[in-house]
């Protein structure tokens, strides 16, 4: 079995989105805020990127838990949602510019027989136009999402 060469472990929180398209950057925004809030805790890594690409499976390999944070255009009751992610290789045609969390989880499973627990936290955006600012509405929703992520992390750590 091929082996990834990454010795880090624990929880990896990955925010992705285009920070030049306002609320599309809410994933990286959430991760940057969280890294300030929960930095003292060991075993948690943070990553913020424009998009998910295939070589990231190398970064994901050692994680026991993956939490993806992304923006969504969906209208959500609480302004955010948290769903459990499963490996999904049905996006097989492979568009190199962006991959889904499920596809990367599928690759992790197929290449490394590794299936970390994973969640996707989606935050409803309002404005995806050009600009670096996250809208006030999206910031408010991001606060709720951050609370859920912290709760999830704490629950996982209590079980360890």
């Amino acid at each position, binding site marked *: 079995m091929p082996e990834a060469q990454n010795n880090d472990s624990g929880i990896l929180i990955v925010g992705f989105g285009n920070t030049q398209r306002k609320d599309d950057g809410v994933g990286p925004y959430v991760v940057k805020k969280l890294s300030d809030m929960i930095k003292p805790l060991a075993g948690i890594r943070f990553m913020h990127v424009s998009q998910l690409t295939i070589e990231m499976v190398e970064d994901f390999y050692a994680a026991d838990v993956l939490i993806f944070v992304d923006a969504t255009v969906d209208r959500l009751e609480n302004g955010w949602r948290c769903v459990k992610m499963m490996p999904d290789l049905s996006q097989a045609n*492979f568009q190199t510019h962006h991959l889904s969390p499920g596809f990367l989880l599928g690759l992790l499973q197929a290449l490394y027989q590794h299936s970390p627990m994973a969640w996707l936290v989606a935050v409803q955006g309002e404005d995806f136009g050009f600009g670096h600012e996250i809208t006030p509405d999206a910031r408010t929703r991001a606060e709720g999402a951050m609370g859920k992520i912290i709760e999830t992390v704490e629950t996982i750590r209590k079980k360890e």
Partner: protein
Amino acid sequence: MEATRKITIDPISRIEGHGKVVINLDEKGDVKDAKFHVTQIRGFEKFCEGRPFEEMPVITQRICGICPVSHQLASAKACDAILGVKIPETAALLRELMHMGQFIQSHALHFFYLASPDLLLGWDANPAERNVVGVVNKFPELATKGIRLRKFGQEIIKALGGKKIHPAFSVPGGVINGLSRAKARELADGFEEAYGTCRIAIDTIGKWVGDNLEEAQKFANFRSNYAGLVDSEGRLNLYDGQMRIVDPDRSILAQFDPADYLNYIGEQVEPWSYLKFPFFRDNGFPDGCYRVGPLGRINAVDAIATPMANEELQRFREKFDRADIRGGSLLYHYARMIELLYCLEKAGEILKDERTYGSDIRKTMHPSNNKGVGVIEAPRGTLIHHYEVDKYGALTKVNLIVATGHNNMAMNNSVGLVARQYIRNGDVQEGILNRIEGAIRCYDPCLSCSTHALGQMPLRVEVLSANGDLIHELQKDPEGLGYA
């Protein structure tokens, strides 16, 4: 009774960008003509007008998520020319190092994930399996090595530009960061594995071509000119040099300062595509078809400056530098891996060069020219950024000729040849359509770059009757698993 048919492939899969192929059949069901259409427009050349020229390295790298480095470098070189500055040698070495990282990640991605399903699983394999997942399932070790090689290239980019995609690095007059020796040592640790993977790729494609020689000879094989940048000794140069155009027998037709490209390259516009058709002016349109990218470069150069890649080039030429196979489009895959080896060697050379660690990395000055042309070899071929500015430095003209544009005529020729080779009496199988897509895939086109197009990427095939009616349309289903 229907007289003729039209086949549409839309979207084309495993390429960077959106396009479609339309095939017109005659009364007998044989191919009358076939066209590769690019159907979107983004308009960078227009909306950049009026912007300060210094912004262009940042703006134009957003054209593409796969080759942002190439656009940033070509743009920075065009801006250097407007400033009238020769950048410090440390800056030039660092730019070239990032460029090598870009090639490594892009060539690895194409070979292992876009091209390998056809080569390793077969043209006629079940389309639900003939994709990256099929490769992962059947060749997991190779797939993993491909991922790690791509990551290695991305790490070079990140070491210099802070991030892997859309890095901030090249600016008018130089670069904004130096490279620490500690970071260089980290990168150096990755070479042994990268060379090993590259060797596997070269052996794999070499064996494939050897085992499928007849197909390599017949598949989209045609006479064309070839083009690419060369150094002062006529060797491969991906960052700088003169542009050389050779004829189908590899005799030099022209070699010139790329800034003078307009004297040698014309651009034809056709009503059915947003992608322009560059041509070699001396031959006119359409006879002035030339090919860029890996095969274009490998056929245009005299040699390669690094020893291992040059050895591979000689081995390649002993087998394939013949009139009956030189123009075979499948050889692009082989040429791409020879270039990958060159890029690894070149990156290693730069990291060992003491000048790479200098502190003089940028020259600033006021613009001294109202025009600047920046040319580099991007992974897919020659990339030209041409800007003109007013006395305030605001852009009055922007012309971008990207690799996929240079190859537009060649891709159309390839589509037509493969369609004629395989479609007979109206019999159109999925595997045939995949071969037509595969002909395009050889060139590794990036339609986002070439049209500056907005949207998603995939391809469609249409079959039209003799009187132009759409009678058959094949379109990739939403999951991309086959044709609907």
